[in-house]
């Protein structure tokens, strides 16, 4: 079992694909068609381009705020591809590649960051919770989903994300403990991107790895190179299998790096050096997978460039749709607090309409 072999307490980390794009542990390499890998690569590139475009729109004042996941594409995608459509995805707010794979339309995601609740109304078939802003609180929801799955005797699993900062929250602890006690089929993935805004990973906790926090809950924990798509897939597949078999939750620490700012209002140059960033760029998950695909002749440089061009165009179109979307009207803003308007809300809506009419 990977989670036994790669014991975080023994400072082991699961790595399969080297930064040079070589599979260093062929025996651990998950069996995936080249074509599928190529498709996943495209999702990662699409996410990367979308992130870059979003940052650009934001600089142009066309998008409000945005939390890019540049550099972390493999960590979220590698996990989600190991799950099925019937499984649940519980995001934090930095897993764009995973959301896309899960079926959340980019249009909706951009709409959310554009400042419109409609962006969180995903298609009914997409089993994905909305972005969760209060750090780590989503983990308890993930556990509840897992408990419900056991209750209904389904073989679904839940894949939930948080950041390295999230591990400090009380709800992280309560969720993992509940999951252990109730053997909830949840895979908790920590995207350890080394920072919580400006606070570095080493100031977040004194535990040497985040994976070892699993010990506190009597559940398996494993540290994975989060920029290594294959390692993420392998670790998650094992965790999913365990969860489906009724053997409970797993904690996966994906060691990665946030190459961009925390959000568009953050200036990372204050708290980290260019050298550090450059060093991590060498470990870029997309670059790595590209090298792999090139070596397997499943991608050419030209095709790759074309991908970027095509995606950029596609995303520009999507964004202009978002930009021309309707803002919520007054009725909509009132309509979703309760199943139906309370008497007080009815009264308030009336007043609001009067303001619209004459007051303003």
């Amino acid at each position, binding site marked *: 079992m990977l989670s036994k072999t790669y014991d975080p307490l023994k400072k082991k980390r699961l790595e399969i694909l080297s930064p040079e794009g070589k599979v260093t542990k062929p025996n651990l390499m998950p069996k995936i068609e080249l074509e599928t890998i190529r498709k996943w690569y495209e999702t990662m590139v699409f996410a990367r381009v979308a992130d870059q475009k979003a940052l650009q729109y934001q600089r142009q004042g066309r998008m409000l705020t945005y939390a890019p996941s540049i550099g972390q594409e493999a960590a979220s995608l590698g996990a989600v591809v190991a799950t099925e459509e019937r499984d649940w995805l519980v995001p934090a707010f930095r897993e764009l590649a995973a959301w896309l794979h899960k079926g959340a339309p980019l249009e909706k995601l951009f709409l959310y960051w554009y400042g419109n609740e409609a962006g969180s109304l995903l298609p009914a078939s997409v089993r994905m919770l909305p972005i969760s802003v209060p750090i780590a609180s989503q983990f*308890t929801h993930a556990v*509840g*989903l897992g408990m419900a799955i056991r*209750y209904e005797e389904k073989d679904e699993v839940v894949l939930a994300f948080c950041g390295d900062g999230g591990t400090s929250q*009380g*709800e992280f602890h309560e*969720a993992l403990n509940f999951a252990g006690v109730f053997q909830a089929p949840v895979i908790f993935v920590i995207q350890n991107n080394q920072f919580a805004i400006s606070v570095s990973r080493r100031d977040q906790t004194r535990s040497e790895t985040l994976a070892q926090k699993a010990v506190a809950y009597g559940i398996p924990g494993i540290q994975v190179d989060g920029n290594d798509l294959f390692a993420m897939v392998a670790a998650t597949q094992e965790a999913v299998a365990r969860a489906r078999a009724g053997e409970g939750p797993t904690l996966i620490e994906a060691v990665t790096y946030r190459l961009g700012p925390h959000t568009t209002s953050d200036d990372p140059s204050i708290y980290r050096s260019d050298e550090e960033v450059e060093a991590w760029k060498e470990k870029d998950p997309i670059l790595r997978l590209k090298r792999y695909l090139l070596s397997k002749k499943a991608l050419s440089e030209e095709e790759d460039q074309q991908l970027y061009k095509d995606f950029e165009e596609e995303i520009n179109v999507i964004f202009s749709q978002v930009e021309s979307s309707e803002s919520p009207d007054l009725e909509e803003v009132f309509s*979703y607090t309760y199943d139906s308007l*309370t*008497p007080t809300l009815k009264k308030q809506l009336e007043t609001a309409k009067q303001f619209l009419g004459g007051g303003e």
Partner: protein
Amino acid sequence: MALLNNIGALTQAFDQEMELDPRVVLYGEDAGFEGGVFRATKGLQEKYGKKRCFDTPLAEAGIVGSAIGMAIYGLKPVVEIQFSGFVLPAFNEIVAHAARYRNRTRGKYPLSMVIRMPYGGGIRALEHHSESIEALFAHIPGLKVVIPSTPYDTKGLMIAAIRDPDPVIFMEPKRIYRAFKQEVPEESYTVEIGKARIVQPGSDLTLVAWGAMVREAQKAIDLLADTEISVELIDLRTISPIDRDTLIQSVKKTGRFLVVHEAVSSFGPGAELISLITEEAFLSLEAPPTRLAGYDIPVPLPKGEHHFMITPKKIVSEIKRLIAY
């Protein structure tokens, strides 16, 4: 019909809803095997199995957060917080999530769930076991806040709460858990959330109370028996959303308004009622709408609690003051 106290009414409500709807799940600290420290869920684990009625680790945010996940999945969790004083660690889950999930997802994931908790003073308890914090919830859009005062209402409101499409904070006045019994129909029924109950009609003053205060208000009215004063007593039953019409109509008739609550006065639930009355029935008022409420202090431990308690005599004294205004 069976003669039940409030605890019995709760248990019967759970039992009937669990029987009827396989999605109903009950849990909390000590809520399973033992049936809760007040025994409201007693016998249910035995009857429905550990799957549907169970104990959790000691973690309120975990309890409420997991209930949110369950509700998203489509179950109907009814979770017990051991005392309302211990709901505070779950405040983030309730305020940031339970209240907002429907809105956040534009209706994709509404949360039908109940968070129940004993609340209120008068049981001579340790610190944090006597507070009345309904206003903290009532101020949060997206939550419904329900407080029964009789076994009949307890059963009907709990069944309504379980069936409600929105998250309901169900606060149980523990002081009257076993204080008295009432005939309660055997069959399942609901009492509408959002509707106050006119306990007794009257013409001179509108007296509003809820939970354990309804009985104190009734005692006060009894004390007034040999006066001419005619009091209309309203049991609010739902703190949020408020039954505006019943209150406004009553005050338009009586011209005087007194709200009585255990919660501390400042920024408390009474302030909302007074504002509602002032805004909507100003021209009918013959005296200032007034509250008789807890002082702005932590509820004293038992040896000092009597200083804090709302008594029928205090209510009478306020009523007389308002009538004489």
